[in-house]
């Protein structure tokens, strides 16, 4: 089972499209304290239901939080990012896959030779491995559509196959 380290943007999107429970069953999810702050604490202030969903998964032990003490002294990115993204970069280890949908963060990770996945990739992976039926994969992709680029939507749809 792969360890996925989510940034806030990707975690919120996966929750918004009702895909988080499935991902939590298939993968081991970890987040940093800063990502918890951005997704749960800030989300609850705005009365976002997804903040409760994420919090419940944390309480059920399906999302684990990496304590700040484990990464706060690690190397920081050389470009400007938000506190959540910085913490994700700092807490990354070889056996953990970063999940981010952010263009700038993804570009920077590539530059640092760190592979990452996006929320769209997770739909693709489960469809490819037949852990998700094509119809279901399309449903999730359709829900994700307003939050991703249109040409990306078309590419993923094509990759899921007819």
């Amino acid at each position, binding site marked *: 089972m*792969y360890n996925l380290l989510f940034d806030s943007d990707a975690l919120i999107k996966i929750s918004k499209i009702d895909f988080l429970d499935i991902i939590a069953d298939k993968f081991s999810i970890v987040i940093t304290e800063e990502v918890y702050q951005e997704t749960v604490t800030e989300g609850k202030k705005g009365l976002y239901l997804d903040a409760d969903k994420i919090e419940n998964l944390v309480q059920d032990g399906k999302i684990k939080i990496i304590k700040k003490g484990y990464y706060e002294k690690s190397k920081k990115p050389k470009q400007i990012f938000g506190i959540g993204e910085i913490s994700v970069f700092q807490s990354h280890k070889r056996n953990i896959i970063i999940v981010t949908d952010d263009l700038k963060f993804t570009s920077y990770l590539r530059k640092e030779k760190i592979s990452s996945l996006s929320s769209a990739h997770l739909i693709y992976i489960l469809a490819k491995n037949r852990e998700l039926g094509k119809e279901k994969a399309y449903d999730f992709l359709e829900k994700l559509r307003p939050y991703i680029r249109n040409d*990306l939507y078309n590419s993923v749809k094509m990759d899921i196959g007819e």
Partner: protein
Amino acid sequence: MTQVQPLRIEEDILKIAELRSKDEHTSKTAAIKQFLYSGAEEYLLKLCSQGRISMGKASEILHKSIYDLQESAKRKGIEVGITTKQYYEGKKFADELE
């Protein structure tokens, strides 16, 4: 932190601010600030779309949650997130995973 910034505003724009202040039962100053904030938000979202700033940093600058920012981008029709090129690079990695 806030700063005082002297600003010359055209009379017609001020009339729009006045209209908004009446519609939304707020002050003219608050209406001008909302126009300014809305413009700043749109500009930052466009920078996100170009990959010049991250969503996390934009949300910090705007004092807005990432939830709110995602919804603003959706509402304004600004496409953010990874490009198709990045998707295909990630897909190669995804295909290597067992």
